[in-house]
């Protein structure tokens, strides 16, 4: 199993959620985070000078899926989250060894 960890723009969250739903990916855990990409944030004109704004609000999704679903998921998220502008976000894939459903105790590996 893998954990697909996507960090996206808050404004695109509803689309991503919808797109995932449509393809049958229902389970997910989300949290509000702040982030900065390789561009070191956004540079604003600022009274002659410049100001760099970093650590902008993002939504982080964590979705645990079977290995075979990972590529599919990457495509869905990438398409739904993309605006083509800076700050569109990142997806990281982490290995997961086990998953347990608390209600039933059933375990998946």
């Amino acid at each position, binding site marked *: 199993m893998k954990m697909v960890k996507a960090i996206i723009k*808050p404004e695109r969250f509803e689309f991503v959620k919808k797109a995932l739903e449509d393809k049958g990916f229902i389970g997910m855990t989300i949290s509000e985070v702040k982030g900065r990409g390789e561009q070191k944030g*956004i540079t*604003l*004109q600022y009274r002659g000078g410049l100001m760099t704004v970093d650590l902008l609000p993002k939504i982080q999704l964590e979705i645990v899926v079977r290995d075979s679903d990972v590529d599919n998921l990457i495509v869905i998220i990438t398409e739904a989250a993309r605006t083509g*502008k800076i*700050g569109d976000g990142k997806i990281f894939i982490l290995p997961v060894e086990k998953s347990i459903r608390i209600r039933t105790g059933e375990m998946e590996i």
Partner: protein
Amino acid sequence: MAIDSGATAWILASTALVMIMTPGVGFFYGGLVRRKNFISMITLSFVAFALVSIQWVLFGYSLAFGSDVGGFIGNLQYLGLNNVGMDPGLYSTAIPGLLYMVFQLVFATVTMAIVTSGFAERIKFSAYLVFALVWTTIVYDPLAHWVWGGGWAAQFGALDFAGGTVVHISSGFAALALALVIGKRIGFGTYAMEPHNIPLTILGAALLWFGWFGFNAGSALGANGLAAQAFVTTNTAAAAGAMAWLLISWLHGKPSSLGFVSGAVAGLVAITPGAGYVTPMAALVIGAIGGAVCYGMLLFRIRKGLDESLDAWAIHGIGGLWGAMATGIFAVAAVNGASGILEGNVQQFIANATGAFAALIYAFVVTYVIAVIIDKTIGLRVSEEEEYVGLDISQHGERC
């Protein structure tokens, strides 16, 4: 005439009550925008308060209440509050002239705060300062003069007890003009843009309802039966507007707290021009229709894809328009000497409608022109990056 200390006490208190409406607007609007623009929104309101306070004592009061020049504007006799003193004045037989002046001041400030709806989440702060100064001077001051300062609308007989036309129609239609000039927020209609802090919006609404007692009952300019009358009509219309919006919107979804408070404000706006002319039972009707109509206009605005998303237009503009006409319908002589259609006086209705539409057109057109000029010169709108990171950080260097 001599000062009446009871009247003075009430107008002092009323002025304080109306003052708290300006931060009230700020919290109301601030809770509705995205988190990244909260500080911006409340700062726009608070700055409106300070800026207009200064403009008003320097020359705004004189433009509005100085001796009439051509029915359109006041002269400069009260420049720098010259000749405005501790004794009763022309407009204030029972209270100090300075008190009348500052009571009017808080009306001018809250009007400016309402206008900020039109460019929420995308206005450049420096452009706002210029705009606010110009707008209050060439839109608000003449309108106040027309209706209250002895200008043509007053001479014509239009009734506006507490500012439905001057405050609400003008600010609502100004917001509409601004929204058209400045354009939609990036992502409007495609991004989710949910209110980020409903509790603070509710706090704002509570402060508005509270302050509105000063706004309307204070407009009796005395601590008397008329003030009590206006107090009761105000509360009744607010309650009716709130319940009407709540119940009607329930047909389309859940009965939301935002619907409730929006309806309350709609009811308050609707009763403003007639508060001292109609009965409490009429207020019930005026408020309920106000809630229903403004809700309908909000839906209409959304359908049209218009990004005037804090709805100053739908609530203040349309609510004020309805209120002006309702006053022409429901006014009864027993309350304050004026009769509306229900007592057979169609003339009053016509006068009120004329005043309202004239104000509407003036406010809309002049605001549009001001906005275009500022946009072409210094630019109304922040850059795309600034809008993306939010005005709190980009304009104020703060975060909440």
